[in-house]
């Protein structure tokens, strides 16, 4: 892979003037066809002219023109095949990793390898974040639907919520305690995520949009609450296997929630998926520690 041979710093090579390097670098990334050329060569390590022509589907003259423009980024071997120079590799790496951030805040889906959840999240996000382009009422129905659903099912299950965890606590008789705990948990959860993204990653963007779409993080959890209620009323929960399935589902849906959280952070706050997962993991760990101490 071309990335393995990557130079550590752009400044290491002093042969070419740094300013010239920078202009070549940004100029190369400024044209769609040149980006494609760099990607094709970078992915295959080297490429022939015929192969480039076949993949780009443009005239020979156009390709020659762009190859000439990319002379600092692309070299030619004795066998006439093109390869990326050190500067070319820097450009390729930048394209691979940061092109999404440079060009658009929208995620192109390359790092999402869970198609089912990506589809669900996409559907939900389109109907919540972009509500100004659609019906405002529709998106608010979705958002408040989640909150009211969580409230109702926490009451029915008599479970209080701590971040991503739920505990059944049947002896507490204060009215609407469980439902309110869900709503409070929602607020605390949101502020924790917002604080973490600000403190750890210095990200202050799209806080309001993130708040509006935040209930979708609770979608898998809400699903679990519904399943838990069904298990409870049917008495399956008292069975050994029923108990096992219930707990396995809880863990799976908690993991899904973490994934949806990192996806939402990525889409709205432009935080990398990995960073979103770290935030999700820390939240998960915090919830576990709190609930462990609460149980002691």
């Amino acid at each position, binding site marked *: 892979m071309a990335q393995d041979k990557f130079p550590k710093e752009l400044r290491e090579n002093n042969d070419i003037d740094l300013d010239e390097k920078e202009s070549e670098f940004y100029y190369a990334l400024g044209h769609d066809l040149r980006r494609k050329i760099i990607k094709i060569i970078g992915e295959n390590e080297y490429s022939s002219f015929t192969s480039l022509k076949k993949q780009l589907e443009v005239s020979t003259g156009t390709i020659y023109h762009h190859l000439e423009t990319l002379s600092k980024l692309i070299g030619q071997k004795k066998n006439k095949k093109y390869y990326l120079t050190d500067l070319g590799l820097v450009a390729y*790496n930048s394209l691979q*990793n*940061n092109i999404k951030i440079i060009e658009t805040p929208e995620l192109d889906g390359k*790092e*999402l*390898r*869970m198609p089912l959840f990506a589809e669900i999240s996409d559907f939900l996000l389109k109907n919540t974040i972009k509500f100004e382009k659609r019906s405002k009422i529709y998106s608010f129905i979705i958002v408040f639907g989640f909150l009211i659903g969580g409230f109702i099912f926490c009451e029915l299950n008599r479970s209080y919520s701590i971040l991503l965890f739920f505990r059944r606590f049947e002896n507490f008789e204060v009215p609407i305690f469980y439902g309110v705990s869900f709503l409070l948990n929602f607020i605390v959860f949101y502020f924790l995520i917002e604080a973490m993204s600000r403190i750890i990653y210095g990200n202050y963007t799209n806080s309001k949009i993130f708040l509006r779409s935040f209930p979708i993080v609770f979608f898998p959890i809400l699903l679990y609450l519904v399943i838990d209620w069904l298990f409870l009323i049917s008495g399956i*929960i*008292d*069975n*050994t*296997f029923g*108990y*096992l399935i219930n*707990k396995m589902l*809880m*863990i*799976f849906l*908690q*993991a899904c929630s*973490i*994934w949806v959280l990192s996806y939402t952070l990525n889409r709205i706050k432009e935080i*990398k*998926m*990995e*960073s979103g*997962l*770290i935030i*999700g*993991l820390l939240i*998960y*760990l915090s919830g*576990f520690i709190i*609930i*462990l101490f609460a*149980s*002691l």
Partner: protein
Amino acid sequence: MNLKSFLDIKLLGIVGAILVLLSEILPWSSSYSLLEIYVITINVQIENAFLFLFPIVSGILSLIANIIQFTKLKEKVEFYILDIMSLGLLFLFFFEIIPDELIYYLDYIGIYFCISGLLFILINLILRLTSNKKKDVK
């Protein structure tokens, strides 16, 4: 990230998974291993008997996730989710089992292996996510 540090991080996860797996067969209470406790509890139909198998399931999940990544030398979101699920199983095991019987378990080696394994898996996951982020930023 160079190959050496990549291997180190991966090994941390594998070692963690092995520690969790080993904890299943080590003594937890009155010289009984978790596997033996599971056999006893399942025979009397205790509803949460399966919880005693969670460390072994968690260890297997984590081991699979780490070995796949180790052999393919590639980071994928699914494996992070698998690792998170494996941690979830351990978390659930701890807060369902530990609060009532912690005092008895502390005298035996099993719990220490399990906690060490959990920490190794957790640290490995955080290190991998962090190192991947650094690579992207570069």
